[in-house]
């Protein structure tokens, strides 16, 4: 039931001693090997030696997503490029992706933490895991893949898309575990029914769902329809990928963060001040063991709280509450992270001007629908239908190409997009999450 008993059930005092030891080493390492951190430390007058206890963490600088972009692509590596065995990247327009490098040890640690996560969900070597997270630069697919192999389970690297074929494989191969976004799980269910496959034909018993916000109602819905235990997984590519945290099947109440590898704090997103245990705020993570690209106090922008109450599963690692929001304007559409600024730069690159736009997100059945409304001004306008329709198609294919999401493009009249106090209201999220 516990993959790594020694580390997962370590008494808190021992765990904190280990964290401090790793933090001290990390601070030395980034100070000497990463110019970005060296400069930040110098500016703030911090010496690596000044970190003497875990409570000194608050003196260290934050790392923001923008810092990763500014150092694109390999500027934050703490090891020579030759030592990096794999690179992942988040979606983004040219030059704006966030890149993450891994040494062999990073890849092994990640597989180990994903194996821990699988086991915490009650998955064993006897299971067949249907992995519908996308394979590629996105961390979801490969992260779950190596974890299942490290555990010794049978992995089906199905990746995303081709839903009809997926449900056929689910019937024929009989996977007992499924990994995907919660909305895709419901989409698979509906597709199965539509293709004459009954839930009795499937052997699923555990679902590991992440990369997307969901509610308790949605969990119950998924559990009832797919007849499995639905568990929440947490991860972000900047830190590692999936498997930073996991909900255990024993309690099914919040996500254990693997604290021997990740140091967590909750801060006030506005002031940046640390908040006391139990208070809701932004999750900040320091990677304690990452070799290729360690990050100090990375601002995840995810809103949650830490629950320090010991869990009945026996793991001593603290849990965080399911992510309830974001402290920035990032949208998650069918598991893909989308910033309105990315859409804006695509529009700029597509037509060479800055049209007014609005993003409308809705959920049709179980699938997220993204609509991009673009105002037609005199520069965009043509008296010929085909020109306007070509423009719609061009914007759509650029969004698909750069961000990996399908959007419906609607041309609208100027000023039909609501503006509040002269500033355009860019996002209208109609999903009830």
């Amino acid at each position, binding site marked *: 039931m516990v993959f790594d008993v020694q580390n997962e059930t370590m008494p808190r005092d021992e765990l904190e001693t280990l964290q401090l030891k790793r933090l001290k080493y990390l601070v030395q390492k980034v100070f000497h090997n990463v110019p970005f951190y060296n400069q930040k430390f110098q500016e703030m007058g911090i010496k690596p030696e000044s970190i003497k206890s875990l409570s000194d963490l608050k003196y260290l600088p934050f790392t923001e997503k923008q810092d990763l972009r500014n150092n694109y692509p390999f500027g934050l590596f703490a090891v020579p490029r030759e030592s990096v065995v794999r690179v992942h990247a988040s979606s983004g327009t040219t030059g704006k992706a966030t890149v993450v490098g891994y040494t062999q040890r990073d890849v092994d640690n990640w597989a180990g933490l994903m194996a821990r996560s699988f086991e915490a969900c009650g998955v064993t070597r006897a299971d067949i895991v249907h992995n519908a997270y996308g394979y590629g630069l996105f961390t979801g697919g490969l992260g779950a893949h190596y974890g299942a192999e490290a555990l010794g389970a049978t992995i089906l690297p199905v990746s995303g898309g081709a839903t009809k074929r997926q449900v056929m494989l689910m019937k024929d191969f009989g996977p007992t575990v499924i990994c995907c976004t919660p909305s895709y799980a419901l989409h698979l269910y509906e597709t199965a029914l539509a293709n004459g496959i009954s839930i009795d034909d499937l052997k699923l018993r555990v679902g590991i769902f992440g990369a997307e916000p969901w509610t308790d109602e949605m969990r119950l819905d998924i559990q009832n329809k797919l007849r499995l235990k639905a568990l929440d997984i947490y991860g972000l590519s900047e830190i590692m990928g999936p498997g930073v945290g996991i909900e255990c099947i024993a309690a099914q109440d919040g996500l254990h963060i693997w604290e021997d590898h990740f140091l967590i704090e909750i801060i006030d997103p506005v002031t940046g001040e640390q908040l006391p245990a139990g208070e809701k705020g932004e999750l900040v993570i320091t990677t304690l063991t990452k070799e290729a690209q360690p990050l100090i106090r990375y601002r995840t922008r995810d809103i949650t709280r830490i629950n320090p109450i010991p869990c009945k599963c026996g793991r001593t690692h603290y849990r965080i509450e399911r992510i309830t929001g974001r402290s920035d304007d990032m949208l998650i559409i069918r598991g893909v992270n989308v910033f309105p600024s990315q859409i804006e730069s695509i529009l700029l690159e597509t037509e060479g001007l800055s049209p007014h736009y609005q993003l409308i997100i809705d959920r049709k059945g179980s699938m997220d629908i993204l609509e991009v409304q673009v105002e037609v001004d005199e520069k965009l*306008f043509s008296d*010929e*239908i085909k020109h306007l329709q070509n423009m719609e198609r061009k914007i759509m294919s650029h969004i698909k190409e750069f961000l990996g999401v399908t959007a419906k493009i609607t041309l609208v009249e100027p000023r039909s997009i609501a503006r509040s106090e002269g500033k355009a209201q860019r996002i209208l999220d109609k999903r009830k999450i």
Partner: protein
Amino acid sequence: MKVEQISIFLENRAGRLADVTRTLSEAGVNIRALSLADTTDFGILRLIVTDHEKAKKALKENGFTVGRTNVVAAEVEDRPGGLHDILSMLSENGINVEYMYAFVQQSGKNAVLIFRFDRTDEAIETLQKNGIRIIPGSELYSI
């Protein structure tokens, strides 16, 4: 020889067309000819009016996106085959029509065809060479 046409971007929603006609009516602009092209989401209204400057100004003031295009007005006899003759001739000369619309003059004998070509000057030359009368803008606005 060319005629000024104004075009207006319209969302497909109730009352939008009436908003245009109200604006023109209040500005005292008369519509000579019109055509409406539509898709599932939007439409393009193309108009030839008595005073395109005035119409454009009034529409822009009311928040519409307005474009201006040069089109060609050709006169044909109002009889069976009248339109076909001119289209065959254009086709034989390799001239592509982007879109067109037509109206019949009140006086009776002739119809007016409004053409949007991609190569307007070449088209005018071909039409004239084949004895088709091109109606000048000034004449059309004041019919």
